[in-house]
């Protein structure tokens, strides 16, 4: 409040004579921030003086200037360490002694802006301050770049709340415990947490609570019944209180019972005992005993007790786990239940209460009737304990004195018995540690079951299969529906359902039923003699599916116009739906129309196809007719159910044969066979044929030329026989070396060359250094020239000078040739002067190892003359090359002397 603002704030009070007035006033603006002034005036307040009275004059202003009391620090921030409640508005200011403008202030590190009161004082108003931390909110100002800093900590307390849920109770009528919800803690480093004090107005006592949310109050011995409690919460800033009025006996909350124990536990009964803490003298407690099974309360009983509680629980299930729990309340006035105490216990076992559900399956194993017995494990309710074993008593009805007892340990649920043709009554009992269950009786006969019964179909729904049957004509004590839970290709998990005698339909449901699996149901009627007779068979699908596979189709009888398809092995039973028939798809030749029996259809891949529908699922053959010869067709056979058909993926190709091909085959095959026979014969007789047609050594006497000649009967053309020729002389002449080339170059066509000299065949000398004129035999017979040339491929044959033709003999073989050579050579030795005849004749026909060279003399007489021969017979080359006979002698036909005369 400044001097210029006299409105300021007014305060009025009444004082008595000689009374000293103390007035405390807290300025919104810290006193250090500005000088404050005060003045006063007075008025007589007396009933004797009529109102309104008269005010005195104002006193002069008294100045309160706290700035004068500040120290010498350069910067102050006020108010110092102020404690306020959350939500308050706080004005702070700084007082600077350095008179600088560059002072900035921060609230928790964030700059704040205020109002400059004078040159050295600025004020900042912080509105609705909130609690930040117990250590207080920091406000500081600093001179920028000056290193001068001043600050304060503003302690913002949370607002003290009124205690909630204040209540008091006693467990023993000796101590009262009062509890409450304290709300938030208002503690700061500047202010401790709020304190709680408990006042009792009737007794006038109070106690300072040590805890934030509860407090104990000792009940006085003077049996005070009514209490009026006030709970006072306070901190530096505020006080809050709450009160309750109650009667002590109406606030009794008993302690938790203890020692809850089962006693004398039987199969159906048990006694529970427990204890409670006594409350006062002779007070009673109402206790509530609850029995729980599987987490649910099944029995509830109230018992009034003083200290010891006991209760008999009955109607319990044998071999069952139970939980008993007890809580108690003060009987005189119910206030609260005590805490619960629980105890678990198990009842004892009892004999099973129900006969096991037994069913049988008859089959023939190795010619013996075998019965498989199945039973369902007893439910927990009926087992009354752990089933240890099952007794199976087999009684022969035809021979009553004979029976057999089998004991099958649990948890087996089936057994197999091999019987004979008699009738048997089978008793099955389940045993636990206490005793057996009632027996389940079933009668079986060794005779095979009558399988010829009515067959039908059942429809599957979401709930299962709704199976119905015709009632049995005779007396039926019940019916049994039997099925297998799994698919047909898996081992059967036999399931059955017992039904009463008046039932003719039921719904078979199982979590194991799957779509697309065929389930077969057999309905049996149970006779009064406890024997089962098959009444009906039903098959059905929970949900039919389209076939997933197509049959394996065999194609046969393929002709140029038709073929046959068959799929005999296809089983309609094991399909994912009832097979209603088959579709035969045939892809025709391009441009070909479908046969009228077929229906034109478009496949998913947009190809056109002819479809034939077979609506009989048992018809598993089909003849495709009216086809074109030599054409490619594609077909597929796919079954269909009510849902759809099988996949159209793998078409099979077939090509129809040519129309005449089978006729041709009838001709070609025998021909091939005949040719083969001929070839085999030829092979076997090849030697004979060779000798007959093309012998190695041609024999002129056997040559076909002869027959040719004879046939033409030409008297001038005859074969010259060697024996008939007597050579006059053999002229051996020396030929110059150079003529060899000439001869060799022209010998292939000797007839075209005009020889001035006779053609020469050189005889090869063995010594290379031989420089003399080479000996040679000259021929003029060109017919044999060619032949000789041909023979040269096999070998040269040496010709000895002066060898008479008659002595040459057949020279075809090397032996003969050598002999002839030796003989001629020896004959000529006497006529040829020694030293002139120095020639070695080597036959290339002879083997190099035959010793020709050694056998020949080292210094044979050198032939000095050349023999010339005149042509005797001109034979065409073609004829000359005809196969000669074995005994023919080449030399005999060729070596003809010039002066020879044929006889």
């Amino acid at each position, binding site marked *: 409040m400044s001097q210029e603002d006299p409105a300021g704030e007014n305060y009025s009070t009444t004082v008595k004579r000689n009374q000293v007035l103390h007035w405390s006033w807290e300025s919104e603006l810290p006193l250090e921030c500005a000088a404050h002034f005060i003045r006063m005036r007075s008025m007589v307040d007396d009933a004797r003086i009529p109102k309104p009275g008269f005010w005195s004059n104002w006193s002069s202003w008294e100045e309160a200037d706290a700035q004068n009391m500040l120290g010498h620090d350069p910067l102050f*921030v006020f108010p*110092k*360490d102020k404690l306020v409640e959350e939500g308050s508005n706080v004005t702070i200011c700084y007082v600077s002694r350095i008179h600088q403008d560059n002072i900035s202030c*921060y609230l*928790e*590190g964030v700059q704040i802006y205020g109002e400059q009161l004078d040159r050295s004082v600025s004020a900042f108003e912080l509105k609705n301050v909130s609690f*930040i*931390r*117990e*250590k*207080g*909110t*920091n406000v*500081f100002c600093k001179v920028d770049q000056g*290193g*001068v*800093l*001043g*600050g*304060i*900590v503003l*302690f913002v307390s949370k607002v003290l709340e009124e205690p909630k849920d204040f209540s008091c109770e006693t467990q023993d009528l000796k101590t009262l415990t009062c509890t409450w919800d304290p709300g938030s803690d208002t*503690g700061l*480093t*500047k202010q401790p947490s709020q304190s709680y004090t408990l006042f009792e107005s009737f007794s006038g006592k109070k106690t300072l609570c040590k805890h934030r949310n509860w407090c104990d109050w000792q009940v006085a011995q003077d049996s005070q019944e009514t209490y009026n409690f006030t709970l006072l919460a306070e901190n530096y800033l505020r006080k809050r209180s709450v009160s309750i009025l109650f009667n002590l006996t109406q606030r009794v909350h008993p302690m938790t019972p203890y020692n809850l124990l089962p006693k004398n536990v039987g199969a159906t009964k048990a006694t529970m005992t427990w204890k409670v803490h006594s409350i006062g003298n002779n007070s009673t407690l109402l206790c509530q005993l609850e029995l729980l099974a599987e987490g649910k309360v099944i029995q509830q009983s109230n018992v009034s007790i003083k200290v010891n509680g006991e209760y008999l629980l009955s109607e319990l299930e044998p071999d069952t786990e139970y939980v008993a729990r007890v809580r108690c309340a003060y009987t005189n006035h119910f206030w609260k239940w005590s805490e619960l105490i629980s105890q678990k216990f198990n009842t004892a076992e009892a004999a099973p209460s129900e006969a096991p559900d037994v069913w049988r399956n008859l089959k023939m194993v190795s010619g013996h009737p075998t019965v498989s017995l199945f039973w369902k494990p007893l439910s927990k309710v009926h087992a009354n304990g752990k089933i240890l074993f099952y007794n199976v008593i087999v009684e022969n009805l035809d021979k009553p004195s004979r029976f057999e007892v089998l004991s099958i340990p649990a948890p087996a649920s089936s057994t197999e018995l091999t019987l004979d043709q008699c009738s048997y009554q089978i008793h099955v009992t389940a045993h636990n540690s206490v005793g057996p269950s009632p027996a389940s009786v079933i009668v079986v006969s060794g005779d095979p079951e009558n399988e010829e019964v009515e067959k039908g179909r059942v429809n599957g729904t979401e709930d299962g299969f709704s199976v119905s049957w015709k009632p049995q004509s005779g007396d039926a004590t019940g019916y049994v529906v039997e099925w297998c839970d799994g698919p047909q290709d898996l081992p059967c998990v036999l399931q059955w359902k017992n039904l009463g005698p008046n039932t003719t339909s039921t719904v078979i449901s199982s979590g194991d039923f799957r779509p697309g699996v065929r389930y077969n149901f057999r309905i049996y009627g149970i006779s009064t003699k406890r024997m089962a007779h098959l009444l009906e068979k039903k098959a059905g699908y929970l949900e039919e599916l389209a076939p997933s596979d197509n049959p394996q189709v065999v194609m046969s009888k393929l002709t140029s116009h038709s073929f046959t398809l068959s799929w005999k092995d296809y089983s309609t039973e094991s399909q994912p739906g009832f097979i209603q028939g088959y579709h035969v798809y045939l892809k025709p030749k391009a441009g070909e129309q479908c046969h009228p029996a077929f229906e034109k259809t478009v496949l998913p891949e947009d190809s056109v196809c002819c479809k034939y529908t077979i609506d009989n699922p048992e018809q598993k053959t089909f003849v495709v007719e009216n086809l074109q010869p030599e054409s490619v067709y594609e077909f597929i056979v796919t079954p269909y159910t009510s849902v759809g058909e099988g996949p159209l993926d793998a078409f099979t190709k077939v090509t129809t044969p040519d129309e005449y091909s089978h006729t041709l085959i009838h001709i070609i095959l025998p021909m091939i066979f005949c040719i083969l026979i001929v070839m085999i014969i030829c092979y076997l007789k090849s030697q004979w044929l060779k000798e007959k047609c093309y012998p190695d050594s041609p024999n002129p006497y056997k040559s076909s030329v002869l027959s040719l000649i004879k046939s033409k009967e030409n008297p001038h053309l005859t074969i010259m026989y060697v024996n008939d020729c007597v050579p006059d002389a053999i002229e051996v002449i020396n030929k110059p070396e150079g003529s060899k080339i000439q001869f060799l170059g022209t010998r292939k066509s000797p007839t075209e060359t005009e020889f001035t000299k006779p053609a020469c065949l050189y005889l090869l000398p063995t010594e290379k250094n031989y420089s003399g004129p080479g000996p040679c035999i000259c021929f003029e017979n060109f017919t044999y020239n060619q032949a000789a040339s041909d023979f040269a491929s096999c070998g040269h044959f040496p010709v000895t000078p002066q060898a008479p033709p008659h002595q040459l003999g057949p020279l075809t073989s090397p032996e003969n040739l050598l002999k002839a050579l030796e003989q001629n050579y020896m004959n000529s030795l006497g006529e040829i002067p020694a030293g002139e005849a120095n020639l070695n004749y080597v036959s290339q026909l002879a083997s190099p190892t035959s010793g020709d060279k050694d056998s020949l003399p080292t210094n044979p007489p050198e032939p000095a003359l050349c023999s010339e021969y005149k042509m005797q017979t001109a034979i065409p080359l073609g004829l000359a090359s005809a196969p000669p006979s074995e005994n023919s002698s080449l030399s005999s036909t060729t070596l003809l002397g010039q002066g020879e005369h044929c006889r």
Partner: protein
Amino acid sequence: MLPAAGEPAAGDSWGMLACLCTVLWHLPAVPALNRTGDPGPGPSIQKTYDLTRYLEHQLRSLAGTYLNYLGPPFNEPDFNPPRLGAETLPRATVNLEVWRSLNDRLRLTQNYEAYSHLLCYLRGLNRQAATAELRRSLAHFCTSLQGLLGSIAGVMAALGYPLPQPLPGTEPTWTPGPAHSDFLQKMDDFWLLKELQTWLWRSAKDFNRLKKKMQPPAAAVTLHLEAHGF
């Protein structure tokens, strides 16, 4: 005994055996091999140095938590307030020349006195702390600092220096003075942690220097044997 190159005479063998026995007899008297003697102040200096480094590490975590507890601007990294109310705190900063001129005893005495004061202030800090977790951390640090004080006392004793006796009436006490504003108190807390940090850094240097100084030169044991009568 390994045979020598030459075959010694019987008399020589006896002489060598006697020599060896003499050596063995004198071996316990060689100081360098005597393990039962006082190891000197080396190990305790090393331990003190290690403890200093550990406290440095521990203080880094504690200071972070405590300054956050004080709130801004004390937890701001560049906050460097004037040392307004923390005049009574022992200053760790000292002129380099002055520091070098100090002898070991003075250095150790200054360290000991500084930590005695700082420990006292730190305990006051612990009493003020509002949160249980902070009180636990502070108590743990105080225990470690108490251990450092004991360690320094051990080093001083090992070096034969007497412990500084606190002058009567000058014992530091933590008193939350009414004239001392809460803001200045926070500044004191800030400076206490800062001085503690600087003192630990300085002590690490001091003990490292002392450690090197006390390290004996590379030991070279020379056995000088005199064989008489051989």
